[in-house]
């Protein structure tokens, strides 16, 4: 009966990390006659490993499949067992489930193919109208100006974070003098907490290549670079395969589709520098230098890589372009709000029930994304804030969750749209610790060119560490605020200009948490190590000694199986929390 069976496995980085290879192996043993297909990450990371099984004209999508529960689906598909409801995401028989709502509430344009096709199959990409947009452009005789006009009508703004209108940027480069012109795809997704570009590059690389082709045609570029982080090995691999296949099919190289348009791409592996997301730093990196930004003007559109006109577009922006050319700019512009058209992809993570990749129309509220798609809090504790835009962004408190997703509406809160990282925090998170985390990040990543960014972020990090340790003063908060403004004003590039945002927004919305650290010497989230103590609750302790075995500093002593003998030596304890984690009866209190 498994002869017509098609088993589709999500094999993106998340799926693989969650154990897809092992599940695939087991399924191949159970259903040797079935046809296996690998697709990219559909974005429901919280339900990985996912398996879709189609047979006899019906299909079932299973989630959270592992070695232990796999026999349940095997039995079901052999007609020997009941339908394992708990693992079902959707089937061709059932209506929408709470789990499938995650997908149906989305509007997938940039992600249209991700999770739907084998990322390295040219045949499947063509079957989903892949490369039909570039064919329409070239064979339909569109001029570069007409292409730019279509993108202007779509009114798409750069999805890398800054939100500059794509068509305007292209117009500058179109008019610029100098040969050759370059088109760079910025896949140096450095925001910790963001993985939109990773999913696109590994799940649908051909769409990004097609977007690059259209952009190159519009600005008159003959050379392209795909700058992809080395931390994304699968993205690099899939993109390289897709490039080779595109070259063989005549979409890259000389005289594409018989026209006099020639364009080819080289991959540049990013070596790990957040500042390289800044376009002039990225160009320096391509040229083999330290990734340090330079003063603009001249803008890269006039003088970019190797001093030639260069356009740098983000992966997500490029993935939208083929859709826009195929369906028309007007169709794209109908989605969204007046000043922010189209959709935006977010990487939803943190204290959320259903995390993963979501693409929503602009204008949806943050609350809708968190509740209707994300399913609300994972722990059941109330949600406190959402962090948008990573180290350059800010925190939006729960009271502002009805803010719509729109560049200007989000900027008004002090946060930024950013590239799409959306990390959710519940009541057990500490906003001061989060600000410290981001400052530590930007301080390490500062290239060192501007004094205020180089030293100012270090001083800010020291002040935040002091507050988290419990030795902060009210004056430190004032100094922190003053420094934040100075660093913003006196930095050349976006990294320094936005580095204080996490501090400023948490001070704006969560000042009482800072005050609790400073005046009450208390961390309301129970996170900051200097402000909590760990104690053993004698009435719950069973004396099993597991805490002692995992304690890295041997601060816990007691006699085996004698509950009331166990104590933590506060002088030795480093408040790392390992004991809380391993204690089965929850007998250790961190407060």
């Amino acid at each position, binding site marked *: 009966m498994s002869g017509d069976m098609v088993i589709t496995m999500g094999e993106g*980085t*998340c799926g693989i*990390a*969650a154990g897809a290879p092992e599940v695939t192996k087991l399924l191949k043993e159970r259903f040797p006659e079935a046809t296996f297909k690998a697709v990219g990450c559909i974005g429901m*990371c*919280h339900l*990985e490993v996912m398996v879709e099984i189609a047979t006899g004209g019906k299909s079932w999508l299973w989630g959270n499949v592992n070695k232990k529960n796999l026999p349940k689906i095997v039995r079901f598909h052999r007609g020997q067992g009941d339908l394992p409801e708990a693992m079902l995401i959707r089937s061709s028989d059932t209506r929408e489930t709470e789990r499938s709502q995650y997908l149906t509430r989305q509007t997938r344009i940039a992600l249209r193919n991700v999770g739907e096709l084998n990322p390295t199959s040219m045949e499947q990409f063509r079957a989903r109208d892949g490369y039909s947009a570039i064919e329409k452009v070239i064979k339909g005789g569109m001029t570069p100006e007409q292409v730019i006009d279509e993108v202007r009508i779509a009114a798409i703004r750069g999805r890398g974070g800054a939100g500059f209108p794509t068509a305007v940027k292209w117009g500058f480069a179109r008019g610029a003098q100098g040969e050759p012109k370059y088109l760079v795809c910025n896949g140096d*997704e*450095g*925001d*910790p*907490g*963001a*993985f939109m570009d*990773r999913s696109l590059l590994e799940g649908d690389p051909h769409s990004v290549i097609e977007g690059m082709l259209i952009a190159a045609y519009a600005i008159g570029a003959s050379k392209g670079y795909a700058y992809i982080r*080395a*931390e*994304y*090995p699968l993205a690099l691999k899939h993109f390289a395969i897709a490039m080779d296949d595109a070259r063989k099919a005549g979409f890259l190289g000389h005289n594409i589709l018989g026209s006099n348009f020639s364009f080819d791409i080289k991959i*540049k*592996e990013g*070596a*790990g*520098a*957040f500042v390289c997301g800044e376009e002039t730093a990225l160009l320096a*990196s*391509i*040229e*083999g*230098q*330290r*990734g340090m930004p330079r003063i603009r003007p001249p803008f890269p559109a006039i003088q970019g890589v190797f001093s030639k006109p260069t356009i740098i577009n983000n992966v997500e922006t490029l993935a939208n372009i083929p859709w826009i050319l195929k369906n028309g700019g007007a169709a794209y512009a109908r989605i969204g709000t007046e000043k922010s058209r189209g959709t935006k992809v977010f*990487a*939803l*993570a*943190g*204290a959320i029930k259903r*995390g*993963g990749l979501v693409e929503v129309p602009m204008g949806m509220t943050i609350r809708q994304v968190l509740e209707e798609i994300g399913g609300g809090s994972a722990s059941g504790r109330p949600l406190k804030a959402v*962090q948008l835009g*990573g180290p350059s962004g800010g925190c939006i408190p729960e009271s502002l969750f009805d803010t719509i997703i729109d560049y200007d509406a989000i900027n008004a809160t002090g946060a930024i749209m950013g590239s799409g*990282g959306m*990390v959710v*925090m519940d009541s057990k*998170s500490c906003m001061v610790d*989060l600000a410290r*985390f*981001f400052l530590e*990040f930007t301080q390490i990543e500062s*290239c060192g060119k501007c004094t205020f960014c180089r030293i100012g972020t270090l001083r800010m990090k020291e002040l935040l560490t002091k507050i988290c340790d419990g030795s902060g003063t009210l004056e430190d908060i004032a100094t922190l605020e003053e420094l934040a403004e100075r660093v913003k004003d006196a930095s050349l590039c976006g990294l320094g200009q936005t580095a204080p945002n996490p501090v400023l927004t948490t001070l704006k919305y969560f000042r009482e948490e800072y005050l609790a650290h400073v005046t009450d010497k208390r961390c309301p989230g129970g996170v900051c190590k200097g402000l909590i103590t760990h104690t053993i609750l004698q009435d719950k302790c069973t004396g099993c000694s*597991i805490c002692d*075995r*995992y304690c*890295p500093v041997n601060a816990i002593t007691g006699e085996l199986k004698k509950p009331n003998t166990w104590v933590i030596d506060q002088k030795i304890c*480093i408040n*790392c*929390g*390992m004991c809380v*984690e*391993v204690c089965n009866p929850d007998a250790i209190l961190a407060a």
Partner: protein
Amino acid sequence: MSKASLEATVDPEKVQGWITKIGSDTSAAVPLLQAIQSEYGYLPRKAMNLVLEGTEINASQLFGVATFYAQFRLDPVGRHMIKVCHGTACHVQGADRLNTSLRHALGIENPKEDTASNGSYTIENVACIGCCSLAPVMLIDGEAFPNLKGADAQRHLVKHAKSKGEILPGQTGEGDDQSADEKEK
């Protein structure tokens, strides 16, 4: 095995091969260092010197680049590499505890050290690896382990060490198995 013996033996022909393949102009600096690092796990001084001799890249640029990007390191690494993700999602969900418990198992006490005294494992913190919904995450020799607590990280390490015949110099919460193994050897 002492740490000094972790120094790699550099094959000049290999380095020359990369220069021929990748190029010898200044824009080749990053990919050349990437090739060296992926072969040896770090940038041996001898390989760097060979690049200086065989290309247009000068020492200022090469060392400037090598010390600028997070990917590159100048010190030798252990036989196995553990990468602990410290992206935002991993941080808020307790990635620090992964380091605490792994370092404890590896017996690395000095905060400036990152490699176990017997050269078995090196722990590196990495910026986001993009599996945020499976946070906290770590990689051992490239294999990802999702949704970890500190103790889980240690258990995976113990398992990995057993399968590779490595000894963990520190203490683990798994009881005395490790020290028993150690005595045997």
